[in-house]
């Protein structure tokens, strides 16, 4: 079971190699992976929309989509058909080429990063030795697409959304990478596969999240990831109640669907990467590796949607403040703590020192950021 998909691919390649020359088999092998990802990506997106609608409606005591197919399972297909048949509106003053290119550009990195995510044992499409770096670098290009779209739309709301998006993504990239550094420190490699393999102890339960620095890094990395995907509570680039729909205000039909696709694929890959880095990726007892990976990833996706169902949105300046004044210093301290962790000899000392340091610095940072800390209020009652 564990290597079901690996064996499938192997069987297919064996079958092909029986009548194809070896070079072609190489190409075929790559093609199989690409096709698998190209199917998985949009398919994930489609069903994540269904999943989100269903989940949020349940949170709100509603039923959610239930008319198209059983449990509304065909809803994404119906939506897809609707999107495809809708009129594609391009604003009169828009830069038509860039306006067209932007959604395309945003989907490409979202698909590319799938290649380094290890979906299971031996199931990463490419085991790059700079896999993590590749992931961060490629996913950061989404910013350009968003800015392209917002600028080309020639709409003030879009422009505001684009500016916000650039500011936000640039700010959150920094703590995100820095919070992942302790993991790389512990693993000694940037390859996503070797990061997962480094967490294989304790019957596949020796995840980095079970260390003090790992926990802190996990939370910060995950929250930054949420911000990277423009999801609530960090969804200011498309802040519906303020700037209509932000950068995709002027998009309709399939182009709009592409924006959505990129967003949901990002949600999936960010959750997958978080699971890979901190939750042991495909490691876990008893169940097949890919089951573990998808379980963890979907659990994280669930949390993202749960956030969306609960939390209001932060303001721009508060968002930046959170990134620069809280996350960044805290990740740096966390990096130091992680260094100490590997330096200190005994287990008790390690845990004690790192917990104490983290607690003290947390308190200090909260104190420094006092203007952001809410106050408690009492109210008078007049007769």
């Amino acid at each position, binding site marked *: 079971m564990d290597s079901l998909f690996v064996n499938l691919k192997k069987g297919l390649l064996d079958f092909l190699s029986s009548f194809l020359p070896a070079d072609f088999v190489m190409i075929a092998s790559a093609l199989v992976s690409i096709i698998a990802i190209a199917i998985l990506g949009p398919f994930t997106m489609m069903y994540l929309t269904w999943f989100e609608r269903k989940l949020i409606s349940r949170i709100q005591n509603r039923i959610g989509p239930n008319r198209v197919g059983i449990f509304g399972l065909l809803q994404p297909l119906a939506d897809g058909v609707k999107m495809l048949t809708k009129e594609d509106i391009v604003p009169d003053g828009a830069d038509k080429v860039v306006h067209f290119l932007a959604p395309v550009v945003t989907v490409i990195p979202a698909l590319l990063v799938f290649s380094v995510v290890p979906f299971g044992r031996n199931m990463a499409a490419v085991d790059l030795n700079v896999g993590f770096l590749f992931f961060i670098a490629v996913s950061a290009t989404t910013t350009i697409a968003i800015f392209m779209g917002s600028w080309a739309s020639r709409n003030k709301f879009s422009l505001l959304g684009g500016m916000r998006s650039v500011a936000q993504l640039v700010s959150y990239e920094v703590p995100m990478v820095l919070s992942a550094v302790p993991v790389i420190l512990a693993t000694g490699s940037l390859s996503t596969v070797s990061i997962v393999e480094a967490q294989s102890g304790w019957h596949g339960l020796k995840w980095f999240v079970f260390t003090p620095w790992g926990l802190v890094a996990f939370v910060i990395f995950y929250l930054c990831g949420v911000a990277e995907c423009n999801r609530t509570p960090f969804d200011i680039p498309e802040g519906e109640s303020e700037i*209509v729909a932000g950068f995709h205000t002027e998009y309709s039909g399939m182009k709009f669907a592409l924006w959505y696709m990129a967003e949901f694929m990002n949600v999936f890959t960010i959750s997958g990467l978080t699971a890979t880095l901190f939750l042991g990726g495909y490691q876990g007892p008893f169940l097949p590796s890919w089951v573990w990976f998808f379980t963890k990833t979907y659990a994280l996706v669930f949390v993202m949607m749960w956030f969306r169902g609960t939390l209001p949105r932060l303001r721009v300046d508060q968002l930046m403040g959170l990134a620069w004044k809280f996350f960044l210093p805290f990740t740096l301290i966390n990096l130091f703590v992680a260094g100490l962790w590997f330096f200190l000899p005994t287990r008790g000392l390690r845990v004690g020192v790192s917990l104490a340091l983290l607690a003290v610095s947390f308190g200090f940072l909260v104190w420094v950021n006092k203007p*952001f800390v809410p*106050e408690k209020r009492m109210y008078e009652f007049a007769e």
Partner: protein
Amino acid sequence: MTDSLLQETETLEVNLGPQHPSTHGVFRMNVKLDGETIVSLKPVMGYLHRNHEQIAENISYLGSMPYTDRLDYFNSMSNNFAYALAVEKLAKIEVPERAQYIRVIMAELTRLVNHVSVTGFLLNDLGAFFTPVLYAFREREKILDVFEETAGSRMMCNYFRFGGVKLDLPPGVLDRIRKIVKEFPKFLDEFEGLLTQNEILCMRCQKVGVLPFDLALSASITGPMARASGVNYDIRKVDNYSIYNRFKFKVPLGKTGDVYDRFMIRILEMRQSVYILEQALKEIPEGPVLNPKTAALAKAPRNFKPPAGESYGRVESPKGELGFYLVSDGTPQPWRYHVRAPSFVNLTVLEDLCLGHKVADAVVILGSIDIVLGEVDH
């Protein structure tokens, strides 16, 4: 840094509205932005103007009653209340005891409906994805069902008549209301758990849109908005209209006058309304619901001719002071009919509250003022 080092920047002019997700209707804010900071804001209204006053001046007194429903369509019962009070003052009509109690019960239920949905909508403006609104609407729905059962319509109730109410409560409704009132604090606890301590909400709302006491007073701000700024003025206490002097309740007062205070004052007022409802439901007597002298009025509204004169009837509607100014010339139609719409007057200070804040805050401040365009553009 000296001025010469600062780069020259242009302001960006954005029209928030009239079609915008969170202007609560067809309302437009002409905003000038420096980056994201608001440097000027001009409210533009009138997109929903239907000359309510002129319509009312051309039909019978009773004929305007259903039109008052459409003013603040969230709480038609209190609009009816204010209008009925004004006409009763004009024509000196007495209201029987049971009708007074029914009126108070309905007005307070309306307050619950309004405050609960406004707090929900405020959260929507803050960017929460509909969850608080839908929790609020779950409760609102029960109360609207009660309205439907008593008045025949969920929102456009048209229930009050000069000298009482249209019909007596149908059997079983009082028990239903009792149950709702009993359950409501539980819901409020849950709602507060979801919201009041939420750090994100506090960060977004505290010290945003501060309305100082002096400005609140001089700008004629009323309702929860004024009380959040510490203005101790509740018309239920001041005028003691209807039978409000029989009930014990308190008026919550804020100190800062920011968005968070307005939000909290509404929640605290809901608890006080529940308290009033409990008392009213305990004391409600049996008896007629319509003054027999004016009961015939319903049969021929055109024959209702109040004596010449003028009157101003006002109530504490959930949004503030709602008043009707009537001038009668002894004919079946009012000579002058004017609505003092609370959310219209409360909008006066919108620019003062928003200056220096971000666009996102403007939306929240507008939400905390609690406007309904039907009333603003009467």
